[in-house]
């Protein structure tokens, strides 16, 4: 019977049709499966990869900045934090969540919070439990901020959650000894900028800001969901100018994650961040500190250059700010305070001022080169004023200097001499001489935001820009560095260095290169005796003239002081200038100092107010010359 049924079934055409249909459907499924598995394999693998992998980007620490003698001016300070690895807490988080949900069971359904609303308290409670362990060890009473924790879960779940930041070394030591190696709590290190000298050379060194989007090159997984740790970006000074050089090499890791987003294994791919390149700059921190100390409470700038190479030894601007207040970020109060004091401005390269009597060197050179001044015969009898047309131009010494030749006029900074011979030389030649010394363009120093507002005015400029005629009075003003003239203290320092070398241009540089070759530009174009006459006046100025307050025993120097006036919205302020180079017979250091008086319409002479700063720099420089640092023997450590 059963055999009959089997036979019947086997021959039944309806069953055959059914079998065929099933076979067709199975074949269709198999084909579909094969199609997806064999031909679309790459697509599904890629989707799986994108879903299961996450990338973390870790910026490398920035390079250090050293002064010319290898002292760290800007470095990195380790920053110790205690972090919570959330991936290790999944079980605890779930248990806590369930516990909280159970507590709400008594509530009517309408009043029960949603699951999303209950997640945050559950997470906070767990994190607080761990934070309490830390509180016990460190004797603190810190609290977890639910909002921060929620943001971390929503945005950066893959990264450890920072419970406490910037621990003291003793706290960090306690934690590494007390926390078990396998604990979800771990001590994490990152780096932050550190400025050992605080506010010294603040404008030159600059500061960094937070970079939320650090870039990474040649690291796989660009298409993966990426978490980026905050990096830093140079915002001012050398930190900004050399940002690419200082910036560390970004590292990263790719982790496999579970559906909830927690990492489940060791990284699939990992690259360690590498510190950026170091930078050695030309500043001498001893001289810089000496200048800044002498400038305490003043407003202005001081610049010192290596005469031979043009390397900047001092670049100080006051008021300034403590760079450490920018770490990790500057508070609104501190920013407001810097704003109020005018501390943002780097007066050495951004402040433009009339050069005052320091410009008389240019007038003298122009006069000598043009023949308007004769070093042996040109002289005036200074009665304390000079009449240009019917306008009276005063000398700073209202009682008059008496008879003065070129050297004497430079020594005593006699305005009358320069009014007279400036007018004879003419504005075009004086302006051309100023341009020859580079007063009409930025110096090109490797610092951001050097001003372009410097101005060497001549009749053509006045005609073009003010649509006014040039008057002899304008020439008289120009001859003593007043009127429309505007220069930066760095430009003046460059002029001093150039003059000291007997040349016309100095290209300043903030970068230090050992054995940098001496600069050589166009010669000054004066007969040696003419050059000596100016030099003689400057030397006398340093010894017995207006710059005598800067005099140091045992050091010969040449100086020139100046007092200029500048109109400001608050009234006319005086500017105390002093330029100097030393030693006079073999110039090595050139200095320019410019201070602003802080009250309008008060006397603020360069010889009185700027001399102490020049003296402080010269003293520090001479001390280093007399006591050269002993060179430590170099021992080779390691292979």
């Amino acid at each position: 019977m059963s055999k009959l049924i089997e036979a019947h079934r086997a021959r039944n055409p309806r069953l055959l049709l059914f079998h065929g249909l099933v076979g067709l459907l199975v074949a269709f499924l198999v084909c579909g499966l094969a199609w997806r598995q064999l031909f679309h394999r790459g697509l599904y693998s890629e989707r799986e990869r994108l879903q299961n992998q996450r990338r973390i980007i870790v910026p490398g620490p920035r390079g250090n900045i050293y002064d010319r003698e290898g002292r760290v001016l800007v470095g990195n300070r380790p920053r110790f934090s205690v972090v919570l690895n959330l991936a290790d807490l999944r079980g605890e988080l779930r248990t806590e969540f369930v516990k909280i949900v159970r507590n709400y069971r008594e509530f009517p359904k309408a009043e029960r919070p949603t699951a999303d609303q209950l997640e945050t308290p559950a997470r906070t409670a767990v994190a607080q439990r761990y934070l309490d362990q830390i509180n016990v060890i460190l004797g603190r009473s810190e609290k977890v901020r639910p909002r921060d924790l929620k943001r971390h879960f929503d945005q950066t779940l893959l990264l450890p959650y920072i419970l406490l930041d910037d621990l003291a070394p003793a706290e960090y030591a306690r934690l590494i000894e007390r926390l078990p190696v396998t604990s979800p709590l771990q001590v994490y290190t990152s780096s932050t900028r550190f400025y050992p000298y605080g506010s010294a050379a603040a404008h030159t060194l600059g500061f960094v800001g937070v970079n939320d989007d650090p870039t990474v090159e040649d690291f796989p997984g660009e298409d993966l969901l990426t978490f980026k740790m905050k990096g830093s970006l140079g915002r001012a000074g050398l930190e900004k100018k050399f940002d690419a050089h200082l910036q560390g090499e970004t590292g990263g890791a790719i982790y496999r994650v579970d559906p909830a987003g927690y990492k489940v294994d060791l990284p699939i791919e990992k690259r360690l961040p590498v510190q950026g390149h170091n930078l050695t700059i030309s500043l001498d921190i001893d001289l810089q500190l000496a200048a800044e100390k002498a400038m305490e409470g003043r407003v202005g700038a001081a610049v010192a250059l290596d005469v031979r190479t043009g390397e900047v030894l001092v670049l100080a601007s006051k008021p300034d700010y403590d760079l450490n207040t920018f770490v990790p970020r500057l508070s609104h109060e501190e920013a407001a305070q810097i704003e109020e004091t005018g501390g943002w401005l780097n007066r050495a390269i951004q402040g433009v001022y009339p050069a005052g009597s320091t410009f008389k060197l240019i007038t003298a050179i122009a006069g000598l080169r043009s023949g308007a001044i004769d070093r042996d015969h040109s002289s005036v009898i200074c009665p304390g004023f000079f009449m240009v047309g019917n306008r009276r131009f005063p000398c700073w010494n209202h009682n008059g200097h008496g008879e003065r030749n070129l050297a004497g006029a430079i020594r005593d900074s006699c305005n009358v001499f320069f009014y007279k011979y400036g007018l004879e030389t003419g504005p075009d030649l004086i302006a051309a001489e100023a341009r020859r010394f580079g007063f009409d363009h930025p110096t090109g120093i490797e610092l951001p935001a050097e001003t372009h507002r410097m101005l060497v005015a001549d009749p053509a400029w006045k005609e073009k820009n003010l649509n006014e005629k040039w008057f002899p009075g304008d020439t008289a003003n120009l001859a003593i560095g007043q009127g429309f003239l505007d220069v930066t203290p760095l430009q003046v320092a460059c002029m001093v260095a150039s003059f000291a070398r007997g040349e016309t241009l100095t290209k300043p540089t903030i970068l230090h290169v050992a054995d940098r070759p001496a600069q050589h530009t166009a010669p000054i174009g004066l007969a040696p005796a003419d050059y000596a006459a100016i030099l003689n006046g400057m030397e006398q100025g340093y010894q017995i003239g207006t710059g005598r307050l800067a005099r140091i025993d045992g050091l010969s120097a040449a100086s020139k002081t100046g007092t200029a006036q500048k109109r400001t919205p608050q009234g006319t302020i005086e500017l105390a200038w002093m330029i100097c180079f030393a030693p006079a017979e073999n110039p090595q250091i050139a200095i320019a100092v410019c201070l602003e008086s802080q009250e309008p319409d008060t006397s603020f002479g360069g010889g009185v107010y700027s001399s102490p700063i020049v003296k402080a720099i010269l003293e520090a420089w001479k001390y280093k010359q007399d006591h050269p640092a002993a060179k430590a023997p170099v021992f080779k450590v390691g292979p």
Partner: protein
Amino acid sequence: MLPKRFDQARPFATLGLIVLVWLFVPLVVKSFTRVTFFEAQAPFAAASSYVQDLQEFWAMRVRPKNEMIEAGRDLARLNASYELRLQENDQLQNEILRLENLLKLPPLPAFRFEPARVARRDFSGWWQRLVIRKGANYGITVGAPVVFVGGVVGRVTEVHAYTSVVDLITSPTFRLAAAAEGDPRPVSYQGGLNDSFRAPRGTVEFVPLDIYATATATRRLVTSGLGGVFPPGLTIGEITMLEPSTDGLFKTGEVRLDERLGSLTEVTVLVPLNPLEL
């Protein structure tokens, strides 16, 4: 009667069943079983250790009298030199105390010294630990530092009625705040993966960049005392290699530990007098 095939698989089925049941046993029961098992083992470990001590004692007794007299004389000399050092140490301690008082430094946590014989050594790739013959009966507490004549041995991780387990300094789970000798800045010392036939080693991290050490010019690593568990100045080992980490912030390196750690017979537990201070 069960079919033959199932009969053969019965041991595996039973094992599987036991494993399954064990999985669902509450944690408290599991913990209790583990502790009980350890306590049951303790008398055997202690007895074995006592027998070994006895064996050593009788091995000493059969030595010739002259040799013993000579050893006794050497010991007397050694004792005399120790006595001298103790007096020097007293003077130095008083000086340190005077300076600490001048600087108004807070007192260091005080300890009671509890010598203990080693009952068992467990050295494997998984853990590196000792079982000592003193436990809660001598007031030993979890976390107490353990030292020997060569410096740090480890830290007590488990305390039982008559025995304690010490996590050795060589263990990868051991970490403490250390310092290069003569430098106050704390660094992190951690045990490494030590196999049985290799000189014990550990790793040191977060070492400041201006500290140098090589295999030929080693630097002693000591406890910093900042961690609050170990008193300062105890020898950990010799730093034999340091290399800068890629981030340029620190150096990391290797520490060579005392080879006697592998054959310790007696250690001293520093039992804190006031555990709350730690």
